[in-house]
């Protein structure tokens, strides 16, 4: 069983479109995250949710809206996609200790 799973793995779309990435964890963790990894492999935290409540929003444009329907799910919706949004997006979860990552969603905005 995959501990942290995110879909889709690849997402290719046009500028201006709206898209969503879904994430689910079956580890029973209270905290979930979204990270963005750019072409230089730099991993930057975007959001952190604890028990469905937003804890961190790290200077992310408001075109990005996370939604946590329950503590096992944290989805990321992106409005009006821009070229600079192209990156790999990772979902992760933790319970005070190490982070467990999903396999990533490679977003390409054309």
């Amino acid at each position, binding site marked *: 069983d995959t501990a*942290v799973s995110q879909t889709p793995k690849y997402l290719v779309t046009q500028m201006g479109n709206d898209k969503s990435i879904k994430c689910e964890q079956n580890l029973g963790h209270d*905290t979930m*995250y979204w*990270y963005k990894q*750019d072409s*230089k*492999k*730099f*991993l*930057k*935290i975007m959001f*952190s949710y*604890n028990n469905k409540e937003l*804890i*961190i929003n790290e200077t992310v444009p408001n075109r990005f809206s996370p939604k946590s329907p329950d503590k096992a799910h944290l989805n990321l919706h992106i409005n009006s996609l821009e070229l600079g949004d192209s990156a790999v997006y*990772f979902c*992760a979860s*933790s319970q*005070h*200790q*190490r*982070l*467990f*990552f*999903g*396999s*990533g969603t490679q977003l390409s905005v054309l």
Partner: protein
Amino acid sequence: GESVGLHLPTLSVQEGDNSIINCAYSNSASDYFIWYKQESGKGPQFIIDIRSNMDKRQGQRVTVLLNKTVKHLSLQIAATQPGDSAVYFCAERSNTGNQFYFGTGTSLTVIP
């Protein structure tokens, strides 16, 4: 911080040699540190962790050293193997919450 202007550091080692990967962290209040390995096309995977009240921790073929005076972490890999080729990240956790911040990463290439 932003990645603009930063390049991914690289390290090449001969198979069988030891590797040392270094990381400088930013927050003297961080209480927990982790090393991650990221293979191509995959998410980062946990290697080893260390708490701020320790200065050394050993795992299987890996050792993490923590120097809080200069805010420096290192990962030592013994007898490096081709399967160790990956990008390695250090991460620090702020003691004010369950937030993890990552370093730039180092790309390790093992030469057979």
